[in-house]
């Protein structure tokens, strides 16, 4: 079943410049989809457009068959999509636990089981639950950010460069957690510069360049593709 589909999406920040040009994307339920491509290719912009932070100029985005094109982020979040921005993705002066609570802001039910699950997934956060998120290390912050997004019990998780600026050991750990999250049934779209690792765990991968689709194939096929290597390290 296709959980998310973006068709011919065109978007940009300033009127004269389109960052995305008729981009297409499909995510099947339970998949990890990785989006790779050089900086400025529009990867992060695509995530922002899916989540309604940026309104597309053209094209449609459907989630589980519903048209969600141009909805506000809070409406989209209610439909079961969570988004983790690349930078500034925690509330620094709130404690870890309060950060998680904010993730569950739109839920009116008891979210303690969900919080337990997040703590199971990231045990270190349980230890630091009373600490302000601004005092944590980069990796721990990334965990808080992901934990916050998971509090909605989303069906689809959008991750924008979760490995950016992290130490290698941390990167490995975060990627393992992403797979763990996926194993609980959450579909994931991940934008990464760390292409190899992102493709390794991906069911499907998309390569973007200059705001356009260049390639898309299974993760394994892309890994083996010489073109992909070229895009990363030049000809």
């Amino acid at each position: 079943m296709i959980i998310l589909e973006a068709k011919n999406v065109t978007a940009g920040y300033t009127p004269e410049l389109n960052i995305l040009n008729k981009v297409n994307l499909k995510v099947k339920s339970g998949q990890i989809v990785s989006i790779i491509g050089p900086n400025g290719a529009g990867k992060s912009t695509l995530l922002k457009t899916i989540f309604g932070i940026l309104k597309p100029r053209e094209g449609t985005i459907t989630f589980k068959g519903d048209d969600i094109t141009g909805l506000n982020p809070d409406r989209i979040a209610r439909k079961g999509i969570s988004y983790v921005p690349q930078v500034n993705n925690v509330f620094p002066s709130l404690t870890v636990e309060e950060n998680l609570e904010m993730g569950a802001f739109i839920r009116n039910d008891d979210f303690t089981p969900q919080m337990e699950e997040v703590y199971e997934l990231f045990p270190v956060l349980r230890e630091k639950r009373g600490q302000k998120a601004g005092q944590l290390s980069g990796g721990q912050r990334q965990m808080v950010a992901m934990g916050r997004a998971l509090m909605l019990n989303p069906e689809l998780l959008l991750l924008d460069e979760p490995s950016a600026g992290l130490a290698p050991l941390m990167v490995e750990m975060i990627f393992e957690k992403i797979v763990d999250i996926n194993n609980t049934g959450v579909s994931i779209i991940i934008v990464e510069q760390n292409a190899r690792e992102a493709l390794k765990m991906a069911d499907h991968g998309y390569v973007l360049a200059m705001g356009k689709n260049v390639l898309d194939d299974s993760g394994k096929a892309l890994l083996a593709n010489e073109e992909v290597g070229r895009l990363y390290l030049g000809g």
Partner: protein
Amino acid sequence: MYFSVDRTEDFEVRGERPSVEVMDMNKLEKGNNQNSIMLKVDKVAKSFGGLKAVDECCLEVRQGTITGLIGPNGAGKTTLFNIITGHYKPDKGEIYFEGEPIHGLAPHQIFSKKIYRTFQITREFAQMTVLENLMLVPGGQIGEKIWNTWLRPFAVKAQEKEIRDKALEVLEFVELIHLKDEYAGSLSGGQKKLLELARSMMADPKIVLLDEPGAGINPTLMRKLMDNIQTLCHEKGITFLLIEHDMDLVMNLCEPIIVMSEGKKLAEGCADEIKSDPRVLEAYLGGQYR
């Protein structure tokens, strides 16, 4: 591949890097010694709230090169630029330009050493015309002293004319001349990138630090930008240090290429060396070589 140029004869000279660290100021003033170290970053560190953005980073830029600075996001490249240009003060470490320490100086003092930088997201003066954007840049304008505007109007006017002519020439060069009287804010993203480059030319810089000059512009403009950078380097002897993610651009344009990761220099070399360096592949592609 968008662009290719055969510059091997330039690079051979630099293949064997002299290990001499002492600056020869006489040679520098002639401006044609491509081997001398122009900019030296020595154990510079900067943290933001516990995050080490730049971590005891050491690197050097040689006179007359187009040095590429690459690395994964969050590697500290832009922060390093901000430190070099005086926007941030380093927590520790030293920076030397032509042998003089420049760390701790204010941005305008660093500018006066003929170091110019551009920004990843262009920062033009939106409510000023393209021509005014350029005419602002040159240092030491006598008309910037308010007394001179009243007491020496003719001298100010004469210098304005000079600066204007130079600005027109530069606009001609980057092919923005038809937009000279438009508000800079109304230009397209790519045109703004060219405007940044044009502004850097107005500064008569010895070195220009370019932060992602290629991000978000179309291939045609990109080629123009690369052409311009090369012409400036070869004909005017301007040194470039540029951050870029577009590998085509970096591999074709830059020599040497410095790779940063986690706030440190990871590797340095020519395009082929970088492409086959396992540490670089790991930093970029992730841990399969571990």
